[in-house]
């Protein structure tokens, strides 16, 4: 008996060793492959958060779908929000496969969302009160998403890497859609131009927070070390934020926009942007569902879930 247990132990160690070697060799891990518990749990958390954020992220833009000012914009923003729901669907399926050994499914994901156990991205807790925000979300939030998702395109977990590949291709269209709205406003009337400056001012802190704190000292926890260790991502939060600045600050300036942080500059010696930190205690509150729109958006999701319960019941009856 004792012997059996210890040989099992050895097998596990061997498995772990082989797993790490596979990752280091750049091999992809698939859903049915052996993986350490920590890896599986990290993936479930990461991917279900990403998936649910796509779905919750559809809600701020959804506000503007019926209100889009032209037929072309109505069609464009409908297509964009549809894509986001599609990303959510794709990612939740990847997460569901990983959850199978725990006997969990999509119902559990939704319940975790409602209970606050499953967080959605901080940027989607913010208000989007003008059409300028509809443009800005596409331009800069999707722009930021491209930067953070590109960082995981080569993720060691195959199903996630493949989903991201498809998602990133669509995100490029989203950023173009957003940029086109912003360009029209930038070339428009003084009121239209003021609309974008107003949106940038409103979204600035949320955009800085988008990539998460630079290290655990800011908020107490950070998953970035584990995800780097397991080859899920390569760059740190701060590196991603710097990439974002490098890509978008020149564009903002060329549109004649004023940076909301007037102390900001590029330090050529250190080769990095120096900027004022957002209020990270606010970030902690936001991701605890205490952001300006957290409750309203969760409420929308929950109402839809409750109101349509009879539909889910009917279909499960129909299938069985």
């Amino acid at each position, binding site marked *: 008996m004792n012997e059996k247990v210890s040989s099992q132990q050895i097998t596990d160690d061997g498995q772990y060793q082989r797993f790490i070697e596979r990752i280091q060799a750049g091999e992809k891990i698939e859903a049915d492959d052996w993986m350490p518990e920590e890896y599986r749990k990290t993936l479930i958390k990461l991917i279900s958060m990403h998936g649910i954020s796509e*779905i919750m992220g*559809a*809600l701020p833009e*959804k*506000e*503007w*779908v*019926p*209100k*889009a*000012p*032209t*037929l*072309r*914009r*109505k*069609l464009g923003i*409908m*297509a964009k*929000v*549809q894509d986001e*729901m*599609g990303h*959510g*669907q794709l990612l*939740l399926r990847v997460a569901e496969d990983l959850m199978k050994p725990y006997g969990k499914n999509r119902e559990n994901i939704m319940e975790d969302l409602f209970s606050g156990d499953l967080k959605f991205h901080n940027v989607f807790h913010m208000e989007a009160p003008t*059409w300028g925000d509809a443009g800005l979300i596409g331009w800069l939030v999707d722009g930021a998403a491209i930067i953070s998702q590109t960082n995981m395109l080569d993720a060691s977990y195959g199903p996630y890497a493949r989903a991201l590949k498809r998602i990133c291709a669509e995100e490029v269209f989203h950023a173009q859609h957003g940029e086109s*709205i912003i360009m*029209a*406003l930038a*070339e*428009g*009337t003084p*009121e*239209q131009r003021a609309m974008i400056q107003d949106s940038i001012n409103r979204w600035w802190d949320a955009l800085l927070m988008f990539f998460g704190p630079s290290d655990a000292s800011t908020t107490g926890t950070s998953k970035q070390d584990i995800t780097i260790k397991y080859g899920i991502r390569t760059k740190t939060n701060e590196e991603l934020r710097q990439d974002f600045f490098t890509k978008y600050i020149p564009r903002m300036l060329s549109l004649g926009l004023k940076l909301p942080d007037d102390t900001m500059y590029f330090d050529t010696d250190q080769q990095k942007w120096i900027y004022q930190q957002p209020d990270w205690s606010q970030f902690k509150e936001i991701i605890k569902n205490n952001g300006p729109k957290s409750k*309203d958006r969760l*409420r*929308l*999701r929950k*109402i*839809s879930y409750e*109101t*349509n319960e*009879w*539909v*889910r*019941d*009917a*279909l499960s*009856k*129909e299938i069985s």
Partner: protein
Amino acid sequence: MTNTTNEINPSDSKNSPNALHELLFQLADDDFILAYRGSEWLGLAPFIEEDVAFSSISQDTMGHATMFYQLLEGVVAINANDLAHSRPLTERRNAILLEKVNGPGHYLVEPRYDWAFTVVRNYFYVTAKKVKMDALKKGSYKPLAEAAVKVNLELYYHILHWKTWFTQLLKAGGEARTRMIAAIEKVAEDMDGVFNLGLCEKEMVESGFIESEHSLKQQWLRLMNPILDELKVTLPPFAMKSGNGRAGEHTKDLEDALSTLKEVYELDPSAIW
């Protein structure tokens, strides 16, 4: 979205310009408002998968509305965006059935939307739309006949989608069937408004643009009766209980929808957005 190509062929429409305007406004306004109602559902559908599929249908429908408004650009010399966003309530020609809200609540505040009503309204409407497109394809106004061919291509999928929901929910029995039967009754009350061709019906038919209201309705029944029979559903008589949208009669529901859908447009109708 300025018009260049949709020149009217005088021999097609000069005898009955009003009938042609009316018909195009009916087609455009029907699709426009129903696509709007569909867009309010975004993020609230019963399943994430359905959200994606329904949104794709609403986009097609908004695309069809755009096509019809663009045909009107040539006929009435007004920009399609202005036609869609700035016409007052009384000038709207959509059937009242299509302007009705999806259910209690607002799309951003406590939306308790009724999926059964949405399924029945969309299925009944899209089948009627198919019948109309088949008639328009054979109609005398070339640009519209060509548009109908394009629209028809996408309707195949729409019909299949709503038929699947309609059948599944009725077959499920229990609460689902009860809700569906109630929805069928509600839709029937105003379904005649969808077939109605308004005050210019006679001219429309005489000019060969489309078939009569009566003929459209008969074809609809021929398509639907076998399906309804199989599901043991007795169709209540159709009526126009809430009024005739083709005559510019509308409800508070449309008034609210218009103020939402033109909110940004109205900030500056002459600006480029």
